[in-house]
């Protein structure tokens, strides 16, 4: 096979398609496509992975029996536990704490800080991490955080934008809490020392987000999550709150009703530890690494949906399990970065999706599901996509348009992370467009909560991506980092108040797990899978095929 010739980071064949994008740019800048009507949205959504037939099935056991969810999620819910009762000695807990927080992303870390702020002793809080503290989706948020703090904005407007984006399925009381606390969270972050993009006079620079009717997005260059998270983590470490790493929770413990602790597993040595906790806050994040419908993902290595499994076995109710968020603009080329996120802020700063003929085929700021479906339609129904060397199709994201609108040098300044990533592959995104295709991004649904993060189970709170309700069936950009901090804080405070009522530590048992196994057996589900899966499997097939399991 002949060597492929590369020009400015692209194979020659693809590079030759770029002039079309350059030629049409100034015309497109003046002739922006209109936003879709309700009917048009409904039509295009038929080709969204959520609504295309074949991806889902019914949950057959547990509190959400009869609801539908992606097959990959139902597989986890129907899997057998990693540990059986008899293997674990629960009689002497290794940790006895007031509040145990599972998962140290933005939500879990904020929960710890606020529980401490409420007067819970630092040694009576334990943050449990599957990987390192911060190996999480939170650290990757690029685009921004919403909060209605401009004079022309209002809390009810934030509410309306969000519930419309969520197809009017969001849980009203929980959504209200989100928008009501938004400005306070911005204040809190500012006090902690987060460096948001600001105007000369000190006002926040606020940008559009897909599906918002007003500029409401606060960002820290394109490292919003990194900046917010590293500040919050720095605050957490300064307070010397208890923390363990590479020690995932593999099962919750209950006394039959209440949640009373968890079994943790040392990923390196295989040893387990037992935690007794009067209150448990679940903040284990999302499930992108399940690769729903075979899509690549933007999520971190540990996003395997563990929290949903643990809570469900203990009896907590889930909601909105039937939808998943695909981000419209994942990288489609080069092969090393397929599925990585290209932040929505690129579009809100002026970049347009463009097809092979140089046409802007969709309004750039539709809600994510609509935008993603429109790109899939362009590639696979209208056949106006560009096929990459790996066989994936994509469309252009016309990034040079950003500088047309905001001036030369803007990309390097506003998108240093993305610019750096593409430069590693010789692509200059200020000069040439980049190739995109939707990627699996966010767990819309999850464990149902009330406005302070309580679940249907006593002793269990939930915050962040693992929760369900606040975003309904589709989340808007910038509402998730906000969600993590609003409900991280609310759960931390609520759990602390619960402790202060003098609650006693409950018994530690795995009875709920035995009962769940009984249900699985009654439903005639074979024990061919185990969950939580903790880490995805990416080892090469060849090496796996020859793997031996021997004790040394």
């Amino acid at each position: 096979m002949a060597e492929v010739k590369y020009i400015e980071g692209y194979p020659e064949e693809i590079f030759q398609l770029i002039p079309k994008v350059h030629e049409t740019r100034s015309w497109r800048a003046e002739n922006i496509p209109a936003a879709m009507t309700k009917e048009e949205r409904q039509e295009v959504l038929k080709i969204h992975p959520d609504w295309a037939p074949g991806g889902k099935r019914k949950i057959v056991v547990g509190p959400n029996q009869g609801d539908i969810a992606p097959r990959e999620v139902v597989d986890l819910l129907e899997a057998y536990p990693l540990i059986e009762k008899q293997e674990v000695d629960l009689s002497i807990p290794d940790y006895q704490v007031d509040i145990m927080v599972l998962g140290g992303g933005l939500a879990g870390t904020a929960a710890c800080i606020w529980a401490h702020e409420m007067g819970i002793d630092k040694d009576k809080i334990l943050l449990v991490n599957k990987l390192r503290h911060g190996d999480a989706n939170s650290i990757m948020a690029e685009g921004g955080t919403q909060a209605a703090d401009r004079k022309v904005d209002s809390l009810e407007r934030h509410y309306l934008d969000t519930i419309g984006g969520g197809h009017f399925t969001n849980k009203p009381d929980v959504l209200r809490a989100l928008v009501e606390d938004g400005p306070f969270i911005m204040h809190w972050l500012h006090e902690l020392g987060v460096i948001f993009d600001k105007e000369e006079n000190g006002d926040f620079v606020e940008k559009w987000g897909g599906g918002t009717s007003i500029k409401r997005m606060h960002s820290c260059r394109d490292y919003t999550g990194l900046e917010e998270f590293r500040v919050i983590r720095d605050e957490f470490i300064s307070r010397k709150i208890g923390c363990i790493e590479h020690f995932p929770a593999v099962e919750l413990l209950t006394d039959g009703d209440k949640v009373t602790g968890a079994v943790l597993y040392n990923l390196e040595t295989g040893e387990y530890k037992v935690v007794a906790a009067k209150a448990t806050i679940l903040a284990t994040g999302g499930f992108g690494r399940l690769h729903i419908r075979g899509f690549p993902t933007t999520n971190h290595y540990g996003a395997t949906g563990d929290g949903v499994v643990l809570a469900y076995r203990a009896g907590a109710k889930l909601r909105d399990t039937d939808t998943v968020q695909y981000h419209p603009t994942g990288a489609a080329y080069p092969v090393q970065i397929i599925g990585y996120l290209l932040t929505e802020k690129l579009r809100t700063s002026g970049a347009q999706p463009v097809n092979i003929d140089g046409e802007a085929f969709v309004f750039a700021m539709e809600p994510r599901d609509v935008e993603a479906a429109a790109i899939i339609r362009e590639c696979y129904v209208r056949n106006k996509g560009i096929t990459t060397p790996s066989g994936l199709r994509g469309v252009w994201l016309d990034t040079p348009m950003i500088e047309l609108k905001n001036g030369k040098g803007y990309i390097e300044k506003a998108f240093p992370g993305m610019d750096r990533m593409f430069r590693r592959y010789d692509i200059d995104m200020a000069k040439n467009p980049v190739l995109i295709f939707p990627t699996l991004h966010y767990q819309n649904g999850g464990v149902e909560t009330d406005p302070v993060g309580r679940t249907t189970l006593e002793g269990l709170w939930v915050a962040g991506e693992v929760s369900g309700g606040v975003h309904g069936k589709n989340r808007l950009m910038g509402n998730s980092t906000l969600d993590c901090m609003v409900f991280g804080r609310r759960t931390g405070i609520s759990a602390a108040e619960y402790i202060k009522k003098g609650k006693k530590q409950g018994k530690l048992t795995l009875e709920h797990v035995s009962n769940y196994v009984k249900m699985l057996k009654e439903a005639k589900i074979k024990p061919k899978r185990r969950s939580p899966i903790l880490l995805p499997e990416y080892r090469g097939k060849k090496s796996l095929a020859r793997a031996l399991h021997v004790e040394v």
Partner: protein
Amino acid sequence: MKETKSKKLDPEKVMERIAEASRPTVAGVEEKDVRHWVTIYVMGRGYSVPADLTILTAMEYAGYKFIRGCGCRQGFCGACSTVYRRHGEYKLQTGMACQTRVEDGMYLVQIPFSPAEKASYDISKEAYKVNTLLKHYPELARCVACNTCTKACTQDLQVMDYIQAAIRGDFETCVNESFDCIQCGMCALRCPAEIVQYNMAQLARRLYGRNDRPEPKHLTDRLKEIEQGKFVKPLDEITKKSKEELEKLYYSREKESD
């Protein structure tokens, strides 16, 4: 590569085609599809791996399952710091395993942890002064300006410049030059003066973020309005609206002009 016109596909088929095209990313490349191979040496042992993988995915291809040394997989978390040397060269290079393409003859080892000290403080009680940095990180004064930290940086930041800026009390430069830091720890591990550059810069940035410019007035005003109950009624009303009422409001809402 223009697509040939094909007949309209049904959505389920489209999903299958997408999954098929994504398989190498999601489930790993198949040997038969690989055109170019390179040999890398993981802690000295050689493996033949596909040439267009990153260090991270190449190690997985070779059979390693990461517990440490892998977090975000996208260049944000700093878990996958790697030191490598190319065959025949004396120079040690650093890079993030998830962001660095494999090269033939690469000898590598991951450094997934750095035993660095981080100071504890209550940021609201710390003065916005260079002395605060020196109080918590006195090693800062030992910088000999050797530039080893800059050479070690996996993000290509001008680390020594921001250290020198901090010593001068130039917070602005220190903040701007260190902003893209993912705290992987390579600078601190290479520094002959044992400075923990990334933790020092974290403190500098927090001081700057809090103190350099006041809280925006529009935010302070909004907090006051919330406290006075300005939004209680509108929120009471909107949370009670039916789906039909909300739909009407939503689809007719005015957009702010750009």
